[in-house]
């Protein structure tokens, strides 16, 4: 198992390097002058020229890449043209918020999606199944930003049950940053008020973000269970008198989850990207809004770092998916 994970990790490195080359080329193929971006609105051409020299933007591309690679290997991702702060620092500060939101969305979509998917499969080709299929397709099809605004109008404005924006009430003092995950930090500091208030702020963004994932998981779980139900062993297990709920929820489900888990892996990448919109509507202080800002301002270092980060997270999640596959199905682990 450990060897399997290690091997996968090593195999990921060339992929990440490839990703870095591709993004680096893409970003540098663009016309935007990074020095101008760094210098800001009121800069004179002299200021820009100075920065160009200072940051080596006048050197050949491959040289810049080697330089960049060297820095990245020391976990130095340069300085944001927008904030003039170290990118690594900014990302480290914001990543937990995004992971927290993503995780909440995942918990929501798995927690609801798997049971609903199973239910749809068991009721295959009946009205509950049709209804669930329709709803899950709607869940995928609805534009997140539209849904988010509707949620805001209903739950934050009309009912005033949940906060509209942000991650904590503005009057509340933030707990000291230990992990960066506010729920954890609140617990560490023993701040229940912060914990619950943060949780309240988490609901609407997580629901918005989780909706698409929920729908996807329902669909794939349904398909997986339907597929498994056709297997000979299900007939055998029924013939041997397995009790129905346990048959479905343990013996069938475990076989059906492979596709769902693969989807969860794919979703994770999508969730991080989807966070771009959700975070900006709900002012969630994560990577998403940071990325949008970077793109709008042509902030190369940030774009590179974020792409690399998302690629890494994606790779890590995929390794995790493989591990979970292995745990679900012992045959896969032996083959690998």
């Amino acid at each position: 198992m450990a060897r399997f994970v290690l091997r996968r990790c090593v195999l990921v490195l060339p992929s990440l390097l490839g990703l870095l080359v591709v993004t680096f080329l893409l970003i540098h193929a663009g016309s935007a002058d990074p020095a101008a971006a760094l210098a800001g609105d009121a800069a004179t051409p002299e200021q820009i020229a100075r920065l160009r020299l200072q940051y080596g933007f006048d050197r050949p591309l491959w040289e810049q890449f080697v330089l960049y690679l060297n820095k990245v290997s020391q976990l130095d991702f340069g300085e944001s043209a927008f904030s003039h702060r170290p990118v690594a620092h900014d990302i480290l500060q914001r990543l937990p918020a995004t992971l927290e939101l993503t995780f909440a969305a995942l918990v929501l979509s798995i927690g609801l999606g798997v049971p609903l998917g199973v239910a749809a499969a068991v009721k295959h080709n009946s009205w509950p199944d049709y209804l669930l299929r329709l709803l899950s397709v709607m869940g995928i099809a609805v534009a997140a930003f539209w849904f988010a605004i509707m949620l805001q109008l209903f739950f934050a404005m009309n009912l005033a049950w949940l906060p509209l924006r942000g991650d904590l009430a503005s009057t509340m003092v933030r707990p000291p940053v230990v992990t960066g995950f506010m729920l954890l930090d609140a617990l560490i500091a023993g701040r229940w008020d912060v914990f619950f208030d943060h949780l309240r702020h988490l609901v609407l963004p997580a629901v918005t973000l989780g909706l698409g994932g929920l729908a996807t998981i329902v669909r794939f779980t349904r398909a997986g269970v339907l597929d498994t139900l056709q297997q000979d062993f299900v007939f055998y297990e029924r013939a041997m008198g397995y009790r129905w709920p346990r048959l479905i929820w343990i013996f069938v489900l475990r076989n059906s989850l492979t596709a769902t888990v693969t989807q969860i892996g794919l979703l994770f990448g999508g969730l991080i990207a989807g966070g771009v919109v959700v975070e900006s509507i709900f002012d969630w202080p994560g990577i998403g809004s940071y990325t949008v800002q970077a793109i709008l301002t042509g902030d190369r270092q940030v774009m590179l770092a974020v792409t690399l980060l998302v690629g890494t997270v994606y790779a890590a999640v995929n390794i995790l998916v493989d591990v979970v596959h292995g745990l679900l199905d012992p045959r896969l682990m032996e083959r690998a």
Partner: protein
Amino acid sequence: MTAKITRRQLAGLAAGTVVTGGLIPARAADTTTLVSGFQLPQNLDPHQVYDVPMQAMMLNTYDNLYRYQNDPPEIVAWLAESHTVSDDGLTWEFKLRPGIKFHDGSEMTAEDVVYSFRRVLALALGPAGAFLKILKPENVTAPDKLTVRFKLETSYAPFFAAIPSVCIVNPRVVKAHEKDGDWGKAYVASNDAGSGPYKIVSEGYRPLEYLDMEIFDDHFLGWKHNPKPVRKIAGRPTKETSTRILSLINGTIDWTDGNLPADQVDQINASKLAFVQKDVVMKTFVIRMNNAKPPFDNINARKAFAHAFNYDGFIKEILAGYATRDPYPQPETLWGIPKDAKGYDYDLAKAKEYVAKAVAEGAPMKRPLEIHVQSENEQSVQGAQLFQSDLAQIGLNVKVVGDIWSNLTNAAAKPETTPDMWVHWVSTYFVDPENWVGQMYDSQFHGTWKASSYYKNAEVDTLLRKARALVKQEEREPLYEAAIRQIMADCPDIWIYNSMQLQGINKRVKGRRFCTVGQGAEVRWVTLES
């Protein structure tokens, strides 16, 4: 809720009662905290960044030698008690008030001011633009504890107008956090090094997301002017307009920044908690024409375009009247405007005549043209679309191209890459004609976005350069008037309006004072009513 929690309460959470039950009301009833929706600057270092959001922030955290106050803006002594200038306009001396304290309790001396200006020059970012060419770091000196002396390379009148753009930072704090001779750049970008009426709470800042400040009781001006000041400022910028409006309406934020869309005014005024405050600011809206590219090298062609924009329609209908028509290349309220000069009006018949003239002179009027807009800025898009549909009526073919600011400023570096036309605003960086006509139409600034029409008129160059070198406003005024008269006759750009800022404000906010520099974000005047 206390620190202890029972199992039952946890179970309650699971049932969703805590989540939806409203532990904290949507509106902060707390009258000591102002929740501000102003956009945050790119970072907190006023020497690295100088733009509108920074102005709003630094007015609360930092102090300057002189500062703009009131509406219309007046430059008033602030940290300095007074200043003198030599007859040749080269030597400037500022007298500092005694007993000014930084946030760390240390006293501000002339040396600190010197350090601040040298830091600005060394970083060469943000506010440095106005000083780099005229001031050498070694020529900022402190003859005594309370005197700062500047010796300029050339006489430069806007020097004084630009003084409020430089914040005085605390060198003891900055130097303590210096790394590899970076002038504390990394530290000041996220931390406080000021003396202003509010100080930044430690860990209270995350770029783009939030900025928490608390009152500085020892501010040099004291708090006598405001018996019940705001104790805390919670900066909570909203990224989406819809979220911003909703936050204001339900009391999540106490005020927005001044960029509220005109169409939202009625809705906010109809809400229980908030209203919209209108203030005239110095921020002009202009469609640039690339005078270096045909057909815009032809004056009749340019005039045709200038007559084809529906100024009143745009201002009355799209902006719901929340802007004033400004036919001049700078805000109407600023000095230096020739009162006899007449602008261009919306007249498609005239426009057609000019098209015909231009065509007769061989201008390629039928060439497909592009107008670049800032995609994220709806108003620029609307203006361009309106322009496009009018131009189509007189047979001119224009395509609206979405673009982003950094690309546009970048493209403006060369006449070949500068778009045929593009749309932008010119905000107040300092209150002086130099901020507008000086930097927009003096050909020495070609290559900067402000001068992106690539207009060149030797006479105008001379006038502007002469005016720049003089110190006294009375002497400069006629020169600017002459220059503007000529510029308007040449019609290098399409000047549309001077902005009115629309700020959504919660009704509990009292005592706000407005100044065009900083958009009225100076919190020290404000009280919150319960």
